[in-house]
């Protein structure tokens, strides 16, 4: 789960990571009140679940309350386009009004999982304020790393190694090390799956602060964080994806016109790939899971068809636990109920496949049953043209 910058900063502040004074605002009036309270010299920051907000015009430094009001009017409600939002952008519905600070230096801090060692790794870089992927690509030596030992946590010497390593002056090292240890503790306690403080700043007066906070929470661990449930912002998510999640369907919307319904994540990805290979464009990723029932198949169908770009559907099921006859019955019933008007190509293999094919053949629908994945992909690409 992604959360907003202001929510991430609230978590960090609880653990003692220094953050600037700020207020969240949902309206221009609230933004004005916040700017007044903070003394007028503020930064107005769009709150969306994507990076690159500054370049897209979603962050403005303001000298006066009037400036802040003007900036808030402009940013609130705008369709903010960044390299992470896609060309359609994301509507800005929340602002963070934050005190403006005299910055001496921009640095980077981050934590993520090292999948090879199975341990979290703390990263720090002197190259703050830019895309860390770019730093990793061009100057990997500028990213310093310390492994966080499970159950032990980030130690003082590790934090000092990083703080000195990224060029912090000696007088600021202890404060920075304290902030790093606090960040690591917040990460662990919150079941975070990613944390990035970019930039982590050194102020003119020698203090350090988290000027940004990007924190993702492990969805699988949300059950033990009931207080995080309210942090989810549904408006930042695709409505069809939200709808699918209600039925335990794993759906990701894409830009093509061939919808697919598959059981299993690997096969679902491979189905997208083979559609592309056959010259088509997949409209989505959809994994109905290993134990899907008739009801789920019906809902999956409904969600696929509510994407108006879809011109044809490919159903690719390898029956293991999910039997082909159950799938076929679900598809036929859904087609009857929803009144499907576009071509549907079905490819089934595995448990009870003959019964499944018979149900499709006798349904009265003229759904072509494909022979193998390649045949299925070719048939559905043709049908979508």
């Amino acid at each position, binding site marked *: 789960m992604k959360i907003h910058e202001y929510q991430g900063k609230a978590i960090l502040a609880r653990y003692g990571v220094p953050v600037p004074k700020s207020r969240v605002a949902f309206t221009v009036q609230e933004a004005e009140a916040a700017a007044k309270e903070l003394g007028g010299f503020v930064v107005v920051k769009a709150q969306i679940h994507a990076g690159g907000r500054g370049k897209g015009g979603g962050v403005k430094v303001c000298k006066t309350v009037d400036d802040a009001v003007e900036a808030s009017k402009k940013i609130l409600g705008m369709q903010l386009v960044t390299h992470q939002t896609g060309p359609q952008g994301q509507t800005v519905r929340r602002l963070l009004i934050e005190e403006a600070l005299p910055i001496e230096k921009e640095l980077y801090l981050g934590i993520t*999982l090292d999948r090879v060692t199975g341990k979290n790794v703390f990263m720090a870089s002197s190259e703050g304020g830019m895309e860390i992927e770019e730093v990793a690509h061009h100057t990997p030596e500028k990213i310093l790393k310390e492994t966080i030992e499970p159950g032990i946590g980030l130690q003082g010497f590790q934090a000092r190694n990083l703080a000195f390593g990224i060029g912090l002056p000696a007088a600021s090292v202890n404060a920075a090390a304290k902030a790093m240890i606090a960040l690591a503790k917040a990460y662990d306690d919150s079941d975070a799956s990613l944390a990035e403080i970019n930039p982590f700043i050194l102020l003119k007066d020698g203090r350090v602060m988290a000027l940004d906070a990007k924190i993702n929470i492990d969805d699988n661990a949300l059950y033990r964080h009931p207080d995080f449930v309210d942090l989810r912002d549904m408006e930042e998510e695709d409505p069809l994806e939200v709808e699918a999640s209600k039925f335990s369907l794993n759906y990701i919307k894409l830009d093509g016109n061939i919808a697919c319904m*598959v059981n299993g994540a690997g096969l679902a990805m491979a189905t997208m790939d083979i559609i592309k290979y056959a010259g088509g464009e997949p409209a989505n990723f959809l994994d109905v899971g290993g134990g899907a029932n008739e009801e789920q198949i019906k809902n999956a169908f409904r969600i696929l068809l509510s994407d108006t770009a879809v011109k044809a559907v490919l159903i690719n099921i390898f029956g293991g636990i999910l039997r082909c006859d159950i799938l076929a019955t679900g598809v036929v019933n859904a087609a009857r109920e929803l009144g499907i008007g576009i071509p549907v190509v079905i490819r089934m293999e595995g448990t009870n496949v003959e019964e499944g094919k018979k149900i499709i053949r006798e349904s009265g629908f003229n759904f072509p049953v494909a022979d193998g994945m390649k045949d299925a992909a070719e048939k559905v690409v043709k049908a979508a043209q």
Partner: protein
Amino acid sequence: MSVLVNKETRLLVQGYTGAQGTFHATQSINYKTNVVGGVTPGKGGTKHLDRPVFDTVDAAVKATGANASVIFVPPPFAADAIMEAAGAGIELIVCITEGIPVRDMIAARQFLQGRKSRLIGPNCPGIITPDECRIGIMPGHIHLRGHVGVVSRSGTLTYEAVGQLTALGIGQSTCIGIGGDPIIGTTHLDAIQLFNDDPDTHAIVMIGEIGGNNEEIAAAWIKDNVKKPVVGFIAGQTAPPGRRMGHAGAIVAGGSGKASDKMAAMEAAGITVCSTPADIGQKIKERLSS
């Protein structure tokens, strides 16, 4: 011959009396797997599917001599179940459960350090040696006894490959689903090493997907060490970056974990990389006959 599991495997089922445990234990018993009993805390002393139920894995191992365990325990308790099995000295632990928090798996993996247990999964279909031993959730009937080892991060994509092989009359020595999570026990490299050492495995199918760099690590080792034909496929060539494609571990993040990088590393190692999964069976046939 085969790897890790065979007729001698004495299997325990953790989460034995639950719906999933019951269904798949029954399937395994029907496949003539030697299921020696199960564990459900609080139900010790009873019988289920004609076999004894124990309160703890420790008690079950002492009574039955079990050397393998399969876990059908819900996510909040699954890492604990893995550690319980390792603590009781189980040699092969297969965890089917999907949705275990990463923090729990960091702890479980740490717990396994220095112990003799091997973990397969979590979030995997399990492991099968055709006609001998089925551990997990795969449809047993699609398999055929033979000489191709299969290792894969995905369940149904493995069935797809196995289905093609069987249709061509090409059997499998052992098929291992290593799982789709970011932290897993047995990796591609581990499985490839086992298949390489098994004289009865004549060729290997290696199926990967986006996320992490386990495929690259395995490819580097294959390049220097494996003489047997290897056919590979990577799922997720069209997946958008930054999105988790169903599996918790299937994500291209910060420019790493891309399908194209994995395919290039595999090709450089002499692996026949299929551009679509529909070719896997045919490519193995070609490599075996050339």
